[in-house]
């Protein structure tokens, strides 16, 4: 098979050298210097070269001039390039928004070659021709790099959007109406509108070749004008910070109360009592404290920060230990972040007596997904302070609880507390581990440590919630219990990477206990894996554990 024939044919219909190379060469061809690459590929440079040059005075009939050498020069004249310097970044990325007619022309040429040179197409696998967008980047990125002094990188957060258009676009797209046979609703909707790029691509992917060649001219005509640049805009991808937070206050909620959404009735008695205890009001929230810190240290706009955490705790529940994983999403950031700033951020936020953050770090969109999965699937460890509401010796109750071996299955009907915002149904939940301990000097309260499946309503599990949770701990020990205080001490999610958080001593002792039990049984369970992780991370923490009281 000789490529020369194909090459001659391509040039004669008005293809630029890069478009020729797209079809004759492959992904690995050097697109920066197309004529040189072509020379290498073709054994004999066709004699008509000079004649074709004349022809190429016209705009390329496929890429409409996008891949010609004159295009980047025109683009670089655009004033927006100066704005790239405002961004404190070493990288950038270009996104092309090409008019739909280029896709049609590309398809037309593809089909033309298939009909004219079937053998060549089989050999080259014509459907895998490098895309125009891709070739554009391959060809010119070095030129752009030199111009702006930054490096092209696909993963860069700074994106340059180049929107291109062509005078005859509307006219050429009009043809698609005839090809769009399936979707009548769409035809009706677009009666007086021009088909967009996505719809055209959709039609092109579905249409059969015969029908296409009946309506579209093969090969594509040489256009009278090149495409023009409609706009160049910058867009930054949002960035993500991950971390963990602890909450030490019992009158602080995670997210701000929406004014007016909740009447002042929310847990009146409870709050009054607790406010008296600390002398502070519920005016702030965990989110506000963290966002304020971000604003102070990094100077981000507060409106552009979005907070998400792996679940939430009630406002009267503390969150201790290594804390609750969360992330913030920040829009349109122009700066880069040295590592020290994260430690500074922690310092600034940790001034607040109610909230601490740890493990602050830069993260990305994909790993952020873990946070939400932790909300639903990860085990949580709690410490609860329980109240015995019957005149029964607390030691006996503690004893009874500690005799419970293995996990407890409990069925929780949606608690009255949240019935207004959740569907009513019975949910089965597992309590993996439960231990009680007497608190010396107190005869009506005891401390409870629980390891539960995600989504367990712990408060309801203790008191039974009018019998809607069955069996509750009260049912299991046949004594009426109530819950005085609750703390979350661990969320079993190994994200983000631990930097300076330290697990709650109780968590480590539970895990130790579990390991011992499991070693005895010689059964491997998933829990040991998560345990060993924490042990590896903080070997120094293990030394003191045995002395810690449970």
């Amino acid at each position, binding site marked *: 098979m000789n490529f020369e024939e194909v090459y001659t044919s391509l040039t004669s219909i008005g293809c630029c050298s890069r478009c020729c190379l797209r079809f004759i060469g492959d992904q690995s061809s050097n697109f920066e210097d197309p004529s040189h690459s072509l020379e290498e590929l073709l054994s004999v440079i066709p004699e008509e070269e000079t004649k074709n040059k004349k022809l190429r005075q016209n705009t390329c009939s496929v890429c409409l001039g996008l891949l010609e050498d004159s295009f980047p020069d025109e683009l670089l004249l655009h004033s927006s390039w100066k704005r790239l310097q405002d961004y404190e970044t070493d990288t950038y990325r270009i996104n092309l928004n090409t008019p739909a007619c280029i896709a049609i022309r590309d398809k037309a040429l593809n089909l033309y070659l298939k009909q004219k040179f079937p053998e060549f197409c089989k050999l080259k696998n014509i459907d895998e021709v490098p895309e125009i967008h891709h070739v554009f980047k391959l060809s010119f990125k070095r030129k752009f790099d030199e111009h702006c002094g930054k490096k092209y990188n696909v993963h860069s957060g700074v994106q340059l959007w180049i929107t291109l258009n062509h005078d005859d676009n509307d006219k050429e797209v009009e043809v698609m109406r005839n090809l769009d046979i399936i979707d009548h609703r769409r035809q009706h909707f677009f009666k007086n509108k021009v088909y967009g790029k996505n719809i055209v691509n959709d039609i092109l992917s579905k249409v059969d070749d015969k029908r296409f060649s009946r309506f579209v001219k093969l090969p594509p005509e040489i256009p009278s004008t090149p495409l023009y640049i409609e706009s160049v805009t910058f867009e930054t991808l949002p960035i993500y910070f991950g971390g963990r937070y*602890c909450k*030490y206050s019992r009158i602080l909620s995670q997210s701000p109360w929406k004014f007016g959404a909740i*009447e002042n*009735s*929310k*847990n*009146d*008695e*409870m709050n009054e*009592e607790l406010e008296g*205890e600390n002398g502070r009001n519920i005016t702030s929230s965990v989110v506000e404290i963290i966002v304020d810190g971000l604003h102070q240290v990094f100077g981000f706009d507060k409106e552009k920060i979005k907070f998400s955490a792996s679940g939430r705790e009630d406002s009267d529940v503390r969150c*201790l230990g290594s804390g609750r994983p969360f992330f913030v999403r920040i829009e349109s950031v122009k700066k880069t972040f040295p590592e020290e700033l994260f430690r500074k951020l922690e310092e600034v936020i*940790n001034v607040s*007596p109610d909230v*601490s953050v740890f493990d602050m770090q830069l993260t990305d969109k994909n790993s952020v997904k873990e946070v939400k999965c932790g909300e639903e699937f990860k085990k949580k460890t709690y*410490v*609860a*302070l329980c*109240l015995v*509401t019957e005149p029964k010796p607390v030691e006996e109750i503690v004893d009874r609880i500690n005799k419970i071996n293995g996990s407890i299955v409990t069925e929780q*009907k949606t608690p*009255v*507390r*949240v*019935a*207004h*915002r*959740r*569907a*009513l149904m019975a949910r089965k939940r597992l309590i993996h581990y439960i231990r009680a301990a007497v*608190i010396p000097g*107190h005869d*009506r*309260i005891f*401390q409870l440590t629980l390891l539960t499946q995600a989504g367990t309503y712990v*408060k309801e599990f203790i*008191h*039974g*919630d*009018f*019998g*809607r949770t*069955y069996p509750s701990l009260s049912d299991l020990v046949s004594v009426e219990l*109530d*819950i*005085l*205080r609750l*703390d979350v001490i661990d969320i079993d999610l190994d994200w983000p990477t631990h930097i*300076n958080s*330290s697990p709650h001593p109780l968590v480590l002792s539970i895990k130790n206990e579990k390991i011992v039990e499991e070693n005895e049984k010689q059964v491997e369970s998933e829990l040991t894996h998560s345990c060993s992780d924490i042990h590896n991370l903080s070997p120094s923490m293990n030394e003191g554990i045995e002395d810690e009281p449970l």
Partner: protein
Amino acid sequence: MDETNKHIPEIHEIDNIEKKISNFLPYYERGFHKVYSVEFSKDNFYLDTCISMYSNKICLLFLADGHSIIKENKTIKSLDFKVGKEDRLANSVGGKCKRSAQSLHKNSVICFIETTDGMKYPFCAGIKGKLLDLNPVVLEDYSKMVTFRNTKGYVAMVQPIFQNKREIILKGLLNRQDYENVLSSRK
């Protein structure tokens, strides 16, 4: 945590703990506000309903202390949840919005209580809203609606019309003080 020098008290380190424990309301009173409906009582036939509203406006309906069954120390023989065309037991509630829940008016009957002496007392809702759920504990053992009437023996869980303010929902219902006055005037 040590670096931040924050003092994190242990869970049981609470100031005035004894006082807090003695003031600590049981869960069935925490955040609940009780009101009473006496509209359906006639002569010596008292059909009082106690409505316990939680801070999220969800209401639990109890037998009130002044109800004839309690006043006259009667024993419940059976509960009949077939009211008119509707069977309260067949109530099904779908999703967050509580679709297809049976709707209740102030004078809707939740169930008829039949006592061992052959009397039949209607148990009225006293509040407008959607019937969410009946108490599984009471369904198992009818006597619990009497013995646990001040704790966890609610009969039905009702969601009042949500958009309404508390004052509108609770309009015409008596608070504890007024209800006690009514009770004493009955003697």
